[in-house]
């Protein structure tokens, strides 16, 4: 009996239907779905954009599917967003890019032990936090130190400025590094700090930049989510500016000295290849210039040549592991000794992640 056309079609269809789940399984085992959550808009020319750009670089990689969600507030919404990515899209590796997401990731992680949660900026603690949560961060204060060197060479009034969002350890570390970098060139430089109160407040950031300019500050940098307003306002007030988060040189080419940038793609590629090969999940990932987690913006026409030499030299020392920023004796700006003579804190030292002082030379207070 020969197989007539109808029977052939039916049996082929049945065979295909029977094989389909296997096909999906095969495909699933080859495609890793990676999710990314941002606390603000992903094109803010700053913090979120740095993450989004790195995630975008993952999109071209084989065997990888990327899903993103922006503007996720640090409330139960992010737990639901993460869960949605797992349940509805089958995400196996999720990048939660805002500090305030940590508690929520820790809460959700035990429910999905096979999913890896990579959190930016948090402090993972063995024994306390779930093993499928990991935290990563970059020592961008190394770059702020180098920014400080550039500022030290460029400033004529010996007054430099820093517009910051909130006085939290990561921000204070940057302010201190910037100041110390500048004072390593001219020891009597002072840094004026103004806190805007929140991560994204364009009007306050512009006002702060103007207030700094009124004080005679001639080089400025910042730690806010989107430095665009600061860079443009500084240019209008004829102040030099050092960038942060991403490269803003195109916004103020005549005033941009250099900048501290994230290089998240290094970190993300590490996590992705570990997930794809089944390697164990790294719980504490930290790195600086040496590990390629952060980088400096390219020099521009206005970067003083002396600054370039100094920055290159110090950067080489940092990469060789021979340079420590936070070492004793170090006094804060109230006169108290915060690092005793003879003590050195390597960049990886956890003690630095609870910094609560401003070093000598910074005009401003921590509390308030």
């Amino acid at each position, binding site marked *: 009996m020969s197989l007539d056309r109808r029977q052939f079609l039916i049996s082929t269809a049945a065979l295909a239907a029977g094989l389909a789940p296997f096909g999906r399984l095969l495909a699933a085992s080859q495609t890793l779905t990676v999710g990314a959550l941002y606390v*603000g*808009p992903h*094109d*803010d*020319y700053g913090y979120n954009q740095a993450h989004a750009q790195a995630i975008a670089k993952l999109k071209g990689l084989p065997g990888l599917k990327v899903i993103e969600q922006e503007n996720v507030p640090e409330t139960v919404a992010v737990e639901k967003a993460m869960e949605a990515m797992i349940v509805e899209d089958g995400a196996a590796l999720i990048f939660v890019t805002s500090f305030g997401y940590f508690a929520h990731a820790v809460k959700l992680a035990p429910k999905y032990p096979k999913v890896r949660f990579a959190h930016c900026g948090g402090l993972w603690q063995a024994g306390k936090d779930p093993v499928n949560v990991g935290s990563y961060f970059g020592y961008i204060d190394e770059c702020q130190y180098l920014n400080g060197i550039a500022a030290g060479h460029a400033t004529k009034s010996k007054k430099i400025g820093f517009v910051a969002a909130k006085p939290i350890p990561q921000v204070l570390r940057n302010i201190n590094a910037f100041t110390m970098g500048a004072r390593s060139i001219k020891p009597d430089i002072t840094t*004026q*700090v*103004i*806190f*805007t*109160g929140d991560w*994204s*407040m*364009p*009007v*306050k*950031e*512009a*006002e*702060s930049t*103007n*207030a*700094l*300019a*009124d*004080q005679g500050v001639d080089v400025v940098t910042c730690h806010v989510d*989107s430095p*665009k*307003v600061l860079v*443009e*306002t500084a240019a*209008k*007030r*004829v102040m030099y500016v050092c960038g942060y988060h991403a490269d803003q040189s*195109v*916004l103020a080419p005549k005033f941009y000295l250099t900048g501290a940038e994230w290089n998240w793609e290094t970190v993300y590629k590490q996590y992705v290849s570990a997930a794809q090969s089944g390697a164990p999940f790294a719980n504490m990932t930290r790195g600086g210039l040496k590990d390629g987690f952060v980088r400096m913006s390219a020099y521009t026409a206005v970067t003083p040549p002396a600054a370039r030499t100094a920055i290159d030299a110090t950067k080489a020392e940092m990469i060789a592991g021979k340079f420590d920023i936070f070492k004793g004796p170090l006094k804060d700006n109230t006169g108290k000794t915060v690092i005793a003579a003879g003590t050195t804190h390597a960049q990886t030292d956890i003690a630095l992640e609870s910094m609560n002082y401003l070093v000598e030379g910074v*005009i*401003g*207070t921590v509390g*308030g």
Partner: protein
Amino acid sequence: MSEALVTLAIGMIAGAVRVGTPYLFVSLGECITEKSGRVNLGLEGILVSGAMCGYAVSYLTQSAWIGVGCAAGVGLMLGLLHGLACSLPRVNDIAFGIALMLLGTGLAFFLGKPYIQPQAPQLPSLALGAWSGDPRWQSALAVNALFPIGIALALLLHWGLRSTALGLALRLVGDHEGTARALAYPVLKVRIAATAIGGAFAGVGGAYLSLCYPGSWSEGLSSGQGIMAVALVIFARWRPLGCLAAALLFGAAGALGPALQSIGVTWGYHLFNAVPYALTLGIMIASSRPRQTLAGTPGELSLTR
């Protein structure tokens, strides 16, 4: 010490103009709208839409003034929408204003995504401080081009409301609808027109934010300026010159926080940043009387009934 005070004073004068200009435009617009007896709380949405539109058009046409014009146009249309919708029976203008705020803000954020990164040409400034050798004065008096236009508009409105037939019609429609109808004034048309024009003003105020100061488009640009303008109008007793004074006062108060930090007063910057709001509330409390409507309140305004 006195040097610090001088810097503070200069900072606040500069802030009064820089931060106050959008408040000036939005409150003048709302003044017109409320004089006709309608409240437009959707100004926040119109402001943000104007900011986005102005920035986008300025970028696309490489001319900031065309951007301002388009922002005014968008404001006009949204104001028209508010006016028309509130002319329908039983539509509460306060509630619809809140709807418009959501809609305007949502549309602006949605359509404005591609314009967060590019740089658009900015509005020019008048270097009124060129006489001074002190860079602080130079910067403080580098008044943006829209500020004198705003002052001119305030004066024009002040004169127009008192001395022209159009102004009288507007005031009558807002004060006593019955009399206006008796005199055959087209009440609805006047109200709709007033709301539309108010929206146009708010659009220009928004364009100032993105084309002048801070001079960039982003989703965090507005910090409640649109809603505050409604408070300012009440504070100014519905007088255009009062709106000018209120806008300047508010702008100076807004500059207080950063200016204080720059001279070394670093405690409680959150509280100093709230000074404009506390100040407005304080003055409203001090100058209001219960059971007696504020002098100058348009009779038909639902906000004060």
